[in-house]
């Protein structure tokens, strides 16, 4: 035991414990609970039945009352573990409850009704994942449509962002032409103009282009992001000009140089931009909230917000759909964490 604790507490270079070491581990511990806890709680809750959700204090595991079909009764009856007068325990089905007494029957012997005080019985429950929380909103409500809309917006916006921004970045990094400095200046100046500052005139523009309440009205306004152009240009500047000269000597057209030489070489930067673009579009909220008015056009985020804002919040559906909306993001995070974190560390963009 002491060998184990010595191993666990062993410090590099044999130095003793400093109070900052303790603080660091406390920080990590609290961080683990505070950061993971809420999401874990969300996922667990999303598998609970409405009845289970309404309990207070809440159970940790998603539990559901067991029922049994008993001869002579149309409805399935809930099962309870009952302590009988003789001290023995038995599993009985409850027929009805009258005041503090419950009328119960033995499922094996449904003929006799037994009267039991309600504080003598405990419901028989088992872990049950309420997958209907996931299935029902997709079938009965528009969530499948929201999903499709979000996927459409995310994929189209990301594709256009990548193509249009990389073309502009190529022009701004590898060509000399009049007005290049001016364009670069404008791009730098608008790097930080957030959408919330121009929502009103943008609303006007989108309306006059007949894009109001369409998914293209969500997609187009933010695809020509200065951030993307800037990021890609900085990367393309590191591609040697000699490569482009070599391609020109190799009879490549400018368009071929762009997509067969420059794009593959800028793949790391494109990947970073693609990841960010997917996150931005998937999580976008304010602008879709303004542009989309009919329910069938909602994206997932707007749909979730609307659903959770209803008078009688159906939490079991909201929680399940929230979990579902995290899945793509979680997948990206699991597989591409390294690129995301490296991208943020290098570019400082989010």
């Amino acid at each position: 035991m002491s060998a184990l604790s010595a191993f666990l507490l062993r410090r590099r270079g044999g130095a003793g414990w400093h109070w900052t070491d303790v603080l660091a581990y406390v920080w990590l511990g609290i961080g683990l609970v505070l950061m993971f806890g809420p999401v874990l709680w969300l996922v667990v809750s999303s598998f609970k039945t409405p009845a289970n959700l309404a309990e207070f204090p809440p159970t940790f595991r998603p539990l559901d009352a067991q029922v049994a079909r008993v001869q002579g009764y149309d409805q399935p009856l809930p099962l309870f573990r009952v302590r009988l007068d003789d001290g023995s325990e038995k599993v009985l089905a409850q027929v009805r409850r009258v005041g503090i007494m419950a009328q119960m029957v033995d499922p094996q012997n449904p003929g006799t009704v037994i009267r039991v005080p309600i504080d003598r019985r405990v419901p028989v429950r088992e872990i049950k994942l309420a997958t209907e929380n996931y299935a029902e909103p997709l079938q009965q409500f528009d969530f499948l449509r929201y999903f499709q809309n979000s996927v459409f917006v995310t994929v189209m916006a990301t594709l256009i962002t990548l193509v249009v921004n990389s073309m502009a970045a190529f022009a701004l990094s590898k060509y000399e032409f009049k007005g290049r400095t001016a364009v670069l200046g404008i791009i730098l100046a608008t790097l930080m103009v957030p959408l919330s500052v121009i929502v009103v005139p943008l609303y006007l523009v989108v309306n006059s282009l007949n894009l109001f309440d369409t998914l293209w009205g969500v997609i187009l306004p933010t695809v020509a992001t200065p951030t993307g152009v800037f990021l890609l240009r900085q990367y393309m500047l590191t591609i040697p000009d000699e490569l482009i000269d070599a391609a020109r000597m190799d009879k490549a057209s400018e368009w071929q140089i762009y997509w067969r030489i420059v794009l593959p070489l800028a793949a790391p930067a494109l990947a970073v931009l693609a990841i960010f673009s997917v996150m931005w579009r998937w999580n976008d909220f304010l602008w879709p909230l303004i542009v989309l008015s009919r329910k069938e056009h909602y994206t997932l985020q707007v749909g979730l917000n609307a659903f959770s804002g209803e008078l009688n919040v159906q939490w079991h559906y909201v929680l399940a759909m929230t979990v579902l909306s995290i899945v793509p993001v979680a997948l990206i995070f699991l597989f591409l964490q390294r690129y995301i974190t490296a991208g943020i560390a290098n570019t400082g963009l989010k």
Partner: protein
Amino acid sequence: MSTNTEARGGQVPSLSSLVALPFRFLMGVLNAPMSFVQRRFGIGGMGAVFLAPNMLIFSIFVLIPVAINLAYSLTGGTAIFFEGRYFVGLDQYRTLLTCDDYTTPSTCLQDAFWQSVHNTALFVVLQVTVLVLVSLGTALVLNREMRARGFWRGVFFFPVLLSPVVVGLIWKWILQRDGLLNAILLEFGFERTLWLAERNWAMFWAIFVSVWAHLGFYALILLAGLQAIPRDLYEAAMMDGTGRMRTFWRITLPLLWPNLLVVVILALIKAVQIFDEAFVLTGGGPGTSTMFITQYIYETGFAHVLRNLGLASAASILMGAVLVALTALQLLASNRRARKEAA
């Protein structure tokens, strides 16, 4: 940083090949028309051709809106388009800025606006302070030598990727009357609290939740800064017998200062625009106690039955002015950093 060089080596096989497929098709299709364009404009003219699509979209959806926002804020009326609106001069600004006492929002003509300005100011000051301190602490902890560093970095970072709506819903679920937090507190003998229905608690949770959601991002920037500090400096300090606290104050903090400045300004810019998480979490309530400027713009211009786009436009310009000032500050700081690095 090793991840940096690896990412630059062009080794993103699965992802690049995935993205490459539709790309290849598209690019191949465009080959012939683009060759025609090149014959027409010559190699030198292709720069403008490549720039054109971006500039077109950018002009329509960013430059024109920026340009007409100012004009829009000088008009009144209920119509969306300019034809149905009339010139009111600075009336919208006058409406927004008329106040008997700027410290008391209820004495203002647009009390909701001033309430949101007050709330935003309070939020910005508290949130940025807490956020930067917590991010710094996290970065320092993550910079230590330990096992499974990638995992721990992920623990603090993953909320950054969650959508604001999801973040809001997660915490709304925990903070509700019969939620997890109240259950835990009852277990320890505390009283049940309606967290989102009390003014001060609602503001507290708005700040808490936004720090929770964004600290990973800023911690990551600071972590990159910490890792850029040469190890020999610490080894030299160790040889000199410098204590840990002294090392932190005299070596780490001064060398991290440029990154810290960037983080502070970025956090400021983001905090001024706070909307989504708070909107989903509290809806601006109770009353208007957690309504922030962006929400005011949204409510005034779009959500309210009597939408007032002119007023919203004027409010957005006022917020824009603040952001421009902060951005200028950021450019100044990063310029100074660049010059320092060059020196």
